[in-house]
């Protein structure tokens, strides 16, 4: 009985410590540093004009962009910025470019405050930039993959978790100006 008691005590302490660390990670605004985002080694995508940095000035979002894949139905995510689904078109090309990120305060936590009409800027590795205009925002279930479907226009679809226990996805759709 003594060993069982110890096991539960240590397990409880471990769970609480891990939960506290993740909570700290979730809300700590100083966790990310963007001072070196312009360094070439941070460029993961190998295209000539790959997206490097995404900003939404109206909600104070400014994050580096990292390439990501879907492997065995698992979406790669980064804790350092915004993930760009490399299988989707490069932002600014015709079609639907998919970008997503955690809803942590230092990442896309403020995305839920964007409104249609506000601007999204994407900087590229060739120092060019493109501006997008948010035309839709909505909240969907995680199973609603219709938002990922390719479109005839030139758009980016940006999403993050929202809702009770992150059970929903907040989606912002922006088209090229």
């Amino acid at each position: 009985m003594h060993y069982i008691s110890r096991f539960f005590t240590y397990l409880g302490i471990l769970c609480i410590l891990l939960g506290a660390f993740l909570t700290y990670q979730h809300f700590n605004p100083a966790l990310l540093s963007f001072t070196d985002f312009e360094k070439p080694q941070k460029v993961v995508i190998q295209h000539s004009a790959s997206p490097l940095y995404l900003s939404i000035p109206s909600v104070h979002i400014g994050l580096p962009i990292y390439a990501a894949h879907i492997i065995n139905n698992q979406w790669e995510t980064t804790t350092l910025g915004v993930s760009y689904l490399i299988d989707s078109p490069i932002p600014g090309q015709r079609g639907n470019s998919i970008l997503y990120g955690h809803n942590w305060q230092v990442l896309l936590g403020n995305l839920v405050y964007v409104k249609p009409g506000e601007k999204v800027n994407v900087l590229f590795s060739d120092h060019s930039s493109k501006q997008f205009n948010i035309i839709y925002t909505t909240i969907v279930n995680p199973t609603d993959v219709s938002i990922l479907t390719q479109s005839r226009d030139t758009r980016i679809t940006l999403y993050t978790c929202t809702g009770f226990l992150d059970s929903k996805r907040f989606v912002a759709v922006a088209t090229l100006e």
Partner: protein
Amino acid sequence: MKVLLALITLFFTTLLLTGSVFAASTPVYPNCVNPQTSPNVENDGIHGIVGNSNTFSGNDKVYKLSSNHTVEQCFCANNGAGIQTNWLETTGLSQDDIKVLVSQGWIFVPDGSAWGLDPNPYLAQNISYACIGGSASIGGNVSGAGDGLSDGKSDGKSDGKSSTPSNSVGQVLSGQVLGASTDPGQVLGLAFTGNTQFITGLLISGLFSLVAGFMLKKVK
């Protein structure tokens, strides 16, 4: 002691088994932010709203999906409040299915012809979104309400044009990631971009384990 062990077992069993909830199956409707096809009908004007007695001014797009049984309407009011209405003809649904869907928030419409649909009973589901509107809306606030098929008239009833089929019917490709190099059929959901659920589970499990540990310590 036995009670405590039973509680611990119950707690962890509940954690493992959560997630499966019964729901009547409904067709997949593409989201209005990416409807994936051209609208069968589009018009600007004053529109009626199913489940709401007010009238609204804005842009209305109607998409006829794979069959007469499903129609999707995307209404964007001039104030930027959007409402997606999913229409489902009740043909083929049992009374129990209808009851379940109504309990889930679907609105039962006894006669679809009042909204430009076939003269059959329909269920309608309203989902809010935000869009770029024009001038201020007329007649009320759209937020939290839903809309139905409309005819641009202020009576809230349809002229029947909105259900006219076109060549785009059946071209909806929901559930796929077209153009992606990965197998589109394998994409079953969106990325998990939050960990609140995990953190909450950890903290609750931690507290529960600590309490269990202390209680077991007292047991001789």
